[in-house]
């Protein structure tokens, strides 16, 4: 049906119009379409000899949005580094996907194609993991934006395969400093308000759905003050038979869950543009967690009865996206008048594109409909048949007998023109540190523990229910008083599996450090992967079975320097995956995170990469926490310390620039992690904590004040680059891949045996012991005490920093 007269609703005339006019039309409707995209749409409809309808233009804009098509990662890039220029055809395929294919793990059950990545968990079960960003909505309305971010990622997990049960939520945020005193542009929220709202939104949605929120972190930097980053993650568990989904022609298109309203229009296209004062209020919504819980319960009951063949969530783009994706390989015919509405005055295109929350779309064999209706009715959850999947290869949408969309699926999903972008990368960072002041080691350490990027997150964590479902066995707050900083959480999913005899658990950890990215995004990516794996290893997870997720948040990729840095980070991810021999299973990118500041100047965020990692803990009873367990135990440092203070917390505190950014050697790092894991599974390790921001000094302080035991460290015993003669470098260097480990004296030999030959080299060495006196005491290279700090005072500074600035 391609005749001009046969597609109705409101026409959206574009044929013969110049690019400038089309651009203005697009801007007025927040379509975020580029000139080449408009040209491709014009050419398509010229070939059809008709004008498009408004609903068709909206459908194409949504499907082709950065949010849905990840154009930056999948379009060609002309990349220049120094004097060399090369063309990258598809950044995603050539880095993340290629590296994952190279490491080839048979336990990866679904990669990159579904709503989340899926890996095997034992023989019967599978774990699905997805991390989404909800940055633009959270900047506009922190509470609603963050809450619907959680709701959205939970629906991703419900919509992966035939649906997984959510068993863990994670949250990672980047905000401006809460004590920011400078001016803000009209309409922008102060970072404190954003933080409070976002935390409340994540809290209310996750808690009300009965999902523990037990992993994550916060990074403060004033360059996030106009563009906060909100990463919401969910892990789900499903039987392995439910990983595969299939839509068959003749299946009914069934919408379940919330009603459709005017809320959330243009979310997908809005998130593909710079954030400005003209953001549409309709792009923001308030979620309804109880409604989503009903959908969850009904959907999983229907899954177990095998009442549908496929499912996906209504996210950005609403029905348009969900039906378009499910029917991409066959075709779909929709009758919109069947959709339950919140208000009766919605235009056809609004019903089709609305991003109202808490909705899912299923492909249901007609014979199963009655039983499906009964399951959803039992949960008080609405269900409506919107149409059927066809064999036509077309997306046909009707509303009250009028056709409002009639598009070829091939054009919709493969017609997006690929435009080459320019990218440049120049390493302009000085290798030698310069500027800043000097501080005594003790003063620097006291400042570090109270630094916003280090201090206790208890104010946030206590608002979340991390105990619901009763399986959080390593919790976000650890130690004798349950208030120390854990490396990762460990979840025992017995409530979902129903098996109290199986102690198989899994751990989730993260890595993020945009300060390294300011120096070199390639090493930032490697360091983030290393940190995430280190965190997993510290709690007893198997690093050889880790799976990674990448979440890139960047400023405008239309700036060649920004895009160059993004290429560098993606290549760092690929190098990390190959080097550590771990696959990426899922990921997401969020571009255009920049806004005009109070002076009208563009303020881009620092290029930010969150790496999330998940790995099985073979026996949860052997999981390890980070607090010292007693006096007189040996302390071993795994990993080599180099002079790598570039981008470090120590340099930030001194106001120093330059220096070598930490560089990961994945091969030796993974050897150390595997050896430590082997020692943990044999019960030789009492506590373990990774060295990250603040280096060795901060790591030992945190282990000490969390366990309420002190320690004596000897810097001369630190495995290190022999050219280091500075105590401060050994105390505060942020060389990656290092872990401080507490071992009972009687287990030292057995512990060292796990390291094989490397124990004799510099990779692991005994460099201190725990003490009953809660003092951190360090002997310097010259043999005298170079640091002696009471842990009680350090803990107080660590605990009070965030509440102080939040008031």
């Amino acid at each position, binding site marked *: 049906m391609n005749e001009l007269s046969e597609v109705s609703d409101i026409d959206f005339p574009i044929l013969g119009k110049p690019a400038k006019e089309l651009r203005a039309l697009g801007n007025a409707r927040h379509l975020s379409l580029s000139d080449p995209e408009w040209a491709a749409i014009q050419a398509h409809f010229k070939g059809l000899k008709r004008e498009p309808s408004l609903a068709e233009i909206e459908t194409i804009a949504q499907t082709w949005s950065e949010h849905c098509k990840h154009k930056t990662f999948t379009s060609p890039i002309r990349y220049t580094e120094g004097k060399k220029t090369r063309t990258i055809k598809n950044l995603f395929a050539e880095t993340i996907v290629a590296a994952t294919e190279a490491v080839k793990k048979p336990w990866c059950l679904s990669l990159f194609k579904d709503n989340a990545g899926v890996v095997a968990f034992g023989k019967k079960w599978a774990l699905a993991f997805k991390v989404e960003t909800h940055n633009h909505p959270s900047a506009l309305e922190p509470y609603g934006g963050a809450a619907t971010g959680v709701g959205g990622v939970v629906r991703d997990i419900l919509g992966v395969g035939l649906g997984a049960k959510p068993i863990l939520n994670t949250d990672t945020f980047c905000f401006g400093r809460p004590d920011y005193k400078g001016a803000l542009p009209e309409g922008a929220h102060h970072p404190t308000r954003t933080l409070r709202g976002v935390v409340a939104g994540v809290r209310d949605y996750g808690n009300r759905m009965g999902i523990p929120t037990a992993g994550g972190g916060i990074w403060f930097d004033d360059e996030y003050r106009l563009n906060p980053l909100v990463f919401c993650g969910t892990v789900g568990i499903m039987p392995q038979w439910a990983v595969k989904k299939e839509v068959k022609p003749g299946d009914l298109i069934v919408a379940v869950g919330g009603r459709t309203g005017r809320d959330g229009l243009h979310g997908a296209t809005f998130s593909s543009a710079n954030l400005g004062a003209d953001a549409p*209020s309709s792009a923001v919504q308030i979620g309804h967690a109880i409604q989503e819980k009903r959908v969850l319960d009904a959907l999983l009951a229907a899954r177990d009865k095998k009442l549908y063949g496929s499912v996906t969530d209504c996210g950005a783009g609403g029905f348009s996206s969900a039906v378009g994706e499910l029917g991409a390989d066959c075709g779909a015919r929709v009758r919109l008048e069947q959709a339950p509405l919140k208000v009766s005055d919605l235009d056809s295109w609004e019903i089709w594109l609305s991003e109202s929350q808490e909705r899912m779309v299923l492909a249901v064999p007609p014979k199963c409909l009655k039983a499906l209706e009964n399951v959803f009715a039992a949960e008080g959850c609405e269900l409506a048949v919107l149409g059927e999947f066809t064999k036509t290869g077309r997306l046909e949408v009707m509303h009250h007998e009028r056709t409002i969309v009639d598009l070829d699926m091939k054009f919709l999903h493969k017609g997006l023109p690929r435009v080459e972008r320019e990218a440049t990368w120049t390493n302009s960072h000085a290798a030698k540190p310069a500027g800043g002041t000097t501080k005594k080691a003790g003063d620097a350490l006291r400042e570090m523990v109270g630094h916003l990027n280090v201090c206790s997150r208890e104010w946030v964590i206590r608002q979340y229910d991390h105990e619901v479902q009763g399986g959080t066995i390593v919790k976000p707050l650890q130690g004798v008083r349950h208030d120390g900083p854990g490396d990762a959480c460990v979840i025992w999913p017995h409530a979902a599996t129903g098996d109290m005899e199986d102690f198989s658990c899994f751990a989730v950890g993260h890595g993020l450090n945009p300060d390294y990215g300011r120096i070199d995004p390639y090493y930032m990516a490697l360091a983030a992967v290393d940190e995430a794996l280190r965190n997993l290893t510290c709690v007893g997870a198997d690093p050889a079975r880790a799976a990674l997720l990448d979440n890139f948040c960047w400023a405008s990729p239309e700036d060649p320097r920004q895009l160059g840095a993004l290429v560098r980070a993606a290549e760092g991810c690929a190098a990390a995956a190959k080097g550590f021999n771990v696959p990426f299973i899922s990921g997401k990118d969020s571009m255009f995170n920049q806004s005009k500041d109070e002076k009208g100047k563009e303020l881009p965020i620092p290029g930010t990469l969150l790496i999330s990692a998940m790995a099985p803990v073979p026996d949860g009873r052997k999981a390890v926490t980070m607090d010292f367990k007693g006096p007189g135990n040996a302390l071993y440092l795994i990993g080599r310390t180099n002079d790598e203070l570039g981008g470090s917390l120590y340099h930030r505190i001194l106001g120093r620039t330059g220096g070598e950014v930490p560089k990961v050697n994945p091969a030796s790092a993974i050897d150390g992690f595997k050896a430590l894991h082997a020692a943990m599974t044999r019960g030789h390790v009492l506590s373990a904590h990774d060295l990250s921001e603040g280096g060795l000094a901060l790591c030992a302080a945190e282990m000490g004040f969390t366990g309420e035991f002190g320690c004596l460290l000897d810097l001369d015993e630190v495995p290190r680059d022999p050219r280091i003669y500075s105590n401060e470098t050994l105390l505060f260097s942020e060389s990656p891949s290092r872990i401080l480990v507490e071992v009972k004296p009687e287990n030292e030999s057995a512990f060292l045996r796990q390291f094989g030959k490397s124990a004799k080299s510099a990779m692991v060495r005994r460099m201190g012991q725990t003490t009953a006196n809660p003092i951190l005491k360090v002997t310097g290279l010259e043999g005298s005490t170079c640091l002696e700090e009471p842990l009680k005072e350090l803990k107080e500074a660590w605990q009070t920093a965030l509440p102080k600035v939040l*008031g």
Partner: protein
Amino acid sequence: MSVKIQAANVHLIEVKLRSEFNDAEGSAALALLREQGLTNLKGVRIGRLYEVSGALSANQAHQAGKDLLCDAVTQEFRLVPAAPAPMNGMNFWRVEVWLKPTVSDAVGATVAEAIAEGGLPRPASARCGMLYLLDGRAVKAQVEKAVAKSLANPLIHRVVVTEAHP
């Protein structure tokens, strides 16, 4: 399809913590408003507002307030009369924060369902709002500005500021 339009009853139900209880939420709101420059404020008390429209009589709205929306031990409720309350200079302010009609109101939707499940006529709609009672001298424009910066988001909220009786 014919649509029968009926004049709807609209009831505004106000639920507050009893005055003998410490209002922690109110204290938090007070701190936020002071940060925004309302330094003369002495106290803030918080309440919830439910605007219920439809076929409910005043007695039925009263019953919904009593049985469903109010915890009789710690809270008190009243049906807010349509007539304006007596004014008292600039010393007391009543601030109502409502979600705009285009924004989904999950709590309101739940209240509507709960009223129907409680055996009363199903409301045509129910909207939920926040009530802030401000004790302290201020100018209306100052209050509006401070509320927009701390307790409400103009993008999704409608704010009504009126002088109030203590």
